[in-house]
């Protein structure tokens, strides 16, 4: 059994209540001692503890606990604010800085936090800029290569060169997409999710890919449309690449009606259970995929996960009992 509360709030309350009570009891004890002395010296009719004592006790308890609660709240509020700010910053790089006010220690913590937030923002911006510059500058030589490839008469060779250029372009695009997802601030809008999925699926089918959509009626979802589009397109890419086909469906989650679930399943071999969590990290590719002719830089799932988190949701990968992978984007309706 644990006597010490888990939260700082509980601990401080316990300390304050115990301390104040101890002080009260001490004074009470001294008081009673005094009174007893007085009684013994001549005042008759002392029978047990007087009812005033109980009143005293209750009043003391109430006063001590309320004072303790208020005091502790005052002390822990800045810590809670700091935690909230860190949480918000984790979700959104452009979260407003913490107000630098209150007692000296709090102010210092807030200042330190804000400086850290600034530094992280600058670091990410610089890294993104550098990667974007490289990816961007690659486009001119790639354009030239595409045009030069058309000059090659050997059809097989031309096809190979074009395939190489396609791979390089896909890497450049994936990197730029990923960086854009990290930096972009798009205003949320109410979106017809069925139309969103149907439009993506129609475009994929036009490219001749094995993608189907089971339909499903859901209320409009307030979200960021290009982030969602990228996420879903990436999940489809993965399913088609590693699992031969992509099957889409959308449901309002049965357990919590306030979340939307977009599910993409495939008919492939799935992912070894040990790698399920790792594979959504950026630039992680599984050995099985690298040795196969699938290309990619390992950003697709990271982009999808980031998009889910941007909406306060998650990306979940599971192997289906009947074979193949199931990727579920859970998107809560009220964040």
């Amino acid at each position, binding site marked *: 059994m644990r006597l010490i509360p888990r939260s700082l709030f509980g601990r401080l309350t316990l300390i304050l209540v115990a301390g104040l009570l101890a002080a009260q009891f001490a004074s009470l004890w001294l008081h009673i001692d005094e009174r007893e002395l007085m009684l013994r010296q001549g005042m008759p009719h002392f029978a047990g503890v007087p009812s005033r004592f109980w009143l005293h006790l209750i009043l003391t308890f109430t006063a001590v606990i309320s004072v303790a609660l208020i005091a502790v709240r005052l002390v822990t509020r800045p810590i809670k604010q700091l935690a909230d700010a860190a949480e918000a910053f984790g979700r959104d790089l452009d979260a407003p800085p913490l107000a630098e006010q209150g007692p000296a220690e709090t102010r210092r913590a807030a200042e330190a936090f804000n400086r850290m937030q600034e530094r992280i923002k600058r670091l990410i911006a610089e890294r993104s800029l550098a990667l974007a510059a490289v990816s*961007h500058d690659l*486009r*001119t030589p*790639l*354009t*030239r*290569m*595409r*045009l*030069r490839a*058309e*000059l090659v008469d050997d059809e097989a060779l031309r096809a190979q060169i*074009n395939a190489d*250029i396609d791979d390089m*372009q896909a890497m450049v*695009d994936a990197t*730029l997409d990923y960086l*854009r997802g990290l930096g972009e601030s798009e205003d949320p*809008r*109410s*979106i*017809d999710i069925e*139309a*969103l999925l*149907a*439009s*993506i*699926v*129609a*475009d994929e089918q*036009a490219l001749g890919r094995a993608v189907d959509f089971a339909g499903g009626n859901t209320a*409009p979802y307030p979200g960021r*449309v*290009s982030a969602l*589009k990228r996420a879903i397109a990436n999940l489809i890419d993965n399913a088609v690449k590693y699992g031969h086909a992509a099957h889409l469906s959308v449901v309002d989650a049965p357990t919590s009606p306030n979340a939307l679930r977009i599910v993409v399943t495939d008919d492939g071999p799935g992912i070894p259970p040990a790698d399920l969590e790792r594979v959504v990290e950026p630039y992680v590719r599984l050995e099985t995929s690298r040795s196969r002719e699938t290309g990619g830089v390992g950003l697709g799932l990271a982009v999808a996960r980031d998009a889910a988190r941007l909406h306060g949701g998650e990306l979940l990968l599971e192997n289906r009992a009947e074979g193949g992978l199931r990727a579920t984007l859970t998107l809560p309706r009220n964040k």
Partner: protein
Amino acid sequence: METRDRILIVDDDPEIRRLLVDYLAKNGFEALPARDGREMAQLLDKHAIDLVVLDLNLPDADGLTLCRDLRSRSNTPVLMLTARGEEADRIVGIEMGADDYLVKPFSPRELVARLKAILRRTRALPPNLQPESQRCLAFAGWRLDTATRALTAPDGVLVPLSGGEYRLLRLLLEHPNRVINRDQLMELIHGRAADPFDRAIDVQVSRLRQRLRDDSREPQLIKTVRGEGYVLAADVTGRASCD
């Protein structure tokens, strides 16, 4: 022998200019290269140009400004080339009057297909509606943003469209209250002739009706004209912005 369409290529990379001129020449176009805005203006004065392929990043002037200037003087269609895939660039490009855009590195075949499509579109069926800036097309409470390709319902909900749905809707909106037959739709949207048993257009129309919440049994917006084709039964107004 039919005359070749004359394409003006404006790009600051000499290799890309040279390669593009050769490639387009091989594909039945006459292509003229220009290095920057000044050369572009000179060539436009000297020659009759059917279409301008304009790179967004030029040394002496912003491609967007050039595009806007060109648009204020003539109806020559413009295809914008950009090295950035960002939506913002596309939006300004379309706002400045570009007819289409391609992101570098593009496939040369794709470029030729787009060039042909633009020329076909501007010749076969000149739009009824040509407001100065037609970024937003509003009809029956709906709004179509031609830059972001976002369709907004009367209740404010965003209704994403597939490429095919967008092209079909755009075409109908550019010719409101005018019957467009299935052959024209097929030709302009898919770039191929319709064979009499091809239902592709009808399938696409029915999907678009669904998106527009238009009852397919008694459509109010996209009406079927039996034996002829389809007509958009609504007035369309062009606006500068959909907000």
